[in-house]
């Protein structure tokens, strides 16, 4: 027998809930923390951004370098997210549907980008394909520039955000098992039919959820991108890097104005994410 589910309409029985004072203290602490660490900083960003009025704000975000930074960030996201969705799906598929040597190691290494500091991640690529390395200079001779240009930014972001999709899908696909795929197989379906008609619909919400987390991180990534980008205004500056440059030039209002764009993007992702979560739970 399953215990009855506890939903908002069916709260914990009185005898099981904590005493009132404990509740008040815990809820109070949560609100205090929320105010101090999330609400205050957020409102500060906006008050700083609009300090010199609407017109100045619009000017700041319409300024060519800012526009270029936004474009570069969106370009990075639009390349990184589909690629990582594909890689993540492939990795999750391999790990959950097949048995092979080194599977456990692969599963552990999947978390490496989370464990490693983004700065180190950036440095890895500088050491790997920088212009002073043999491989980098070979690429340079063939007119391919990776470090201090857009490909470098994309590669660094790919690395840092790789685990999101796979980590979302692996537990989901493990829980669902192979039964449905095997059933489809005995019913005569081909590999791609099984994927399109059975596997993909079963993991669709998890996949989208992972992609949203992946885009949020891609938009905001600073450390790894900072190392490989070279901070060339209008060319290799993403939004977070542009914010940093403006800030170090004591151009606070402009800096916060551009930062507010990041906040907007983050808010959009959070809304999408919770909508997705809702769908995810409903159909899981």
């Amino acid at each position, binding site marked *: 027998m399953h215990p009855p589910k506890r939903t908002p309409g069916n709260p914990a029985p009185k005898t099981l809930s904590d005493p009132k004072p404990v509740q008040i203290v815990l809820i109070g602490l949560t609100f205090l923390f929320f105010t101090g660490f999330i609400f205050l900083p957020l409102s500060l960003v906006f008050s700083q951004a609009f300090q010199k009025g609407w017109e100045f704000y619009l000017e700041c975000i319409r300024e060519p370098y800012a526009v270029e930074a936004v474009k570069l960030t969106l370009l990075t996201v639009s390349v990184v997210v589909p690629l990582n969705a594909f890689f993540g799906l492939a990795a999750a598929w391999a790990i959950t549907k097949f048995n092979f040597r080194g599977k456990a190691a692969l599963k552990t290494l999947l978390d490496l980008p989370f464990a490693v500091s983004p700065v180190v991640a950036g440095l890895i690529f500088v050491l790997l394909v920088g212009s002073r390395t043999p491989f980098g200079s070979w690429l340079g001779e063939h007119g391919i520039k990776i470090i201090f240009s857009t490909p470098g930014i994309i590669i660094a972001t790919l690395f840092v955000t790789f685990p999101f999709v796979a980590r979302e899908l692996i537990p989901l696909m493990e829980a669902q098992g192979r*039964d*449905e795929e*095997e*059933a*489809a*197989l*005995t*019913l*005569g*379906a*081909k590999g791609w*039919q099984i994927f399109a*008609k*059975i596997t993909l*619909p*079963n993991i669709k919400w998890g996949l989208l959820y992972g992609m949203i987390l992946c885009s949020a991180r891609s938009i905001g990534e600073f450390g790894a991108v900072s190392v490989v980008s070279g901070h060339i205004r209008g060319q290799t500056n993403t939004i977070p890097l542009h914010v940093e440059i403006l800030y170090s030039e004591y151009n606070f209002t402009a800096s916060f104005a551009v930062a507010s764009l990041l906040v907007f993007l983050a808010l959009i992702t959070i809304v999408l994410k919770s909508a997705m979560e809702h769908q995810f739970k409903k159909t899981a």
Partner: protein
Amino acid sequence: MGIELQNITKKFAEYTALDNISLNVDSGDLIALLGPSGCGKTTLLRIIAGLELPDSGKIILENKDTTNLPPRKKNVGFVFQHYALFRRLNVFDNVAFGLNVLPRGERPPRKEIRDRVEHLLKLVQMEWALKRYPSQLSGGQRQRVALARALAVNPKVLLLDEPFSALDAKVRQELRRWLRKLHDEIHVTSIFVTHDQEEALELADRIVVINKGKIEQQGTPQEVYDHPANAFVYNFLGNVNVFHGRIRNGKVSLGTHHVDAPDELKHTEEKPSQAFVRPHEIGISKIQSSGSDLVGTIQEVRLLGGQIGLNLECEGFDNPIDAEIPRELYVNLQLAKGDKVFVSLNRVKVFTGDYAI
């Protein structure tokens, strides 16, 4: 011949799941693969379906060697223990799946698919659930839809992997009878795997008892139940009392008691033996009817539906003996815990050899 398995062997690392299994199934028969969990019966079923490959051996379905065919070309219907319905598809689309994935040239027209699905759902008494999703159905209903789905592709062979084991006792019994009836109507060669001897005895035309990757015995339910080939089969087919003793000069010792050895063992040399008696083949009386009766004391009385289970401590026996008697007899004899009774062993089955329980 419906299904012909020749010398199937399958190993997982060091563990031998199937050890040189050969088996023939007549077209249209319903066969039970019966054995304890881990005996290899599910592996054998998956090998027939092509979901696993044997290390060696041949699988011949309807006189065609299918050993190396991929599962989708085997034309085998498979029913899974946990239903494995497609959770994102409704009942209609689940059943139609096997037809919808056919290449364009072979796929029947829409109208025909619809008619076929509706016909199958009527057959499994689920026609009212066309638009339902699997999560809205009970276990028994899901398994019936799964069966319709497997039948939709006109399989040459139907394979059922413990199809009722996830259901509760009442539904299980109902579905069992229903499946037997269905099989009598459609006559597709079928193999089902079970660890439940009752299910196998009630449902199957023939039973194949498997243990540790080997076939112990095969035959009709009657043959297997009445003439078990060895101690394992006897023990697996129902509750038993076991007496370890020796066979000597045509007599078998049970505790301090002796019974005549069966004819085929009359002249055997002295060796260890096991004697088995089923609880319902034990007679209980308040009056001694023959000199060979045992004297026992009722230690425990259990209600088992229509039967009464008695736990008896008998003079000269180390272990208690379980007996089952009709409730009527229990009432008529006015038995109670602590009573002294006379116990007769009506049917003793003796095996020699090193089989141990």
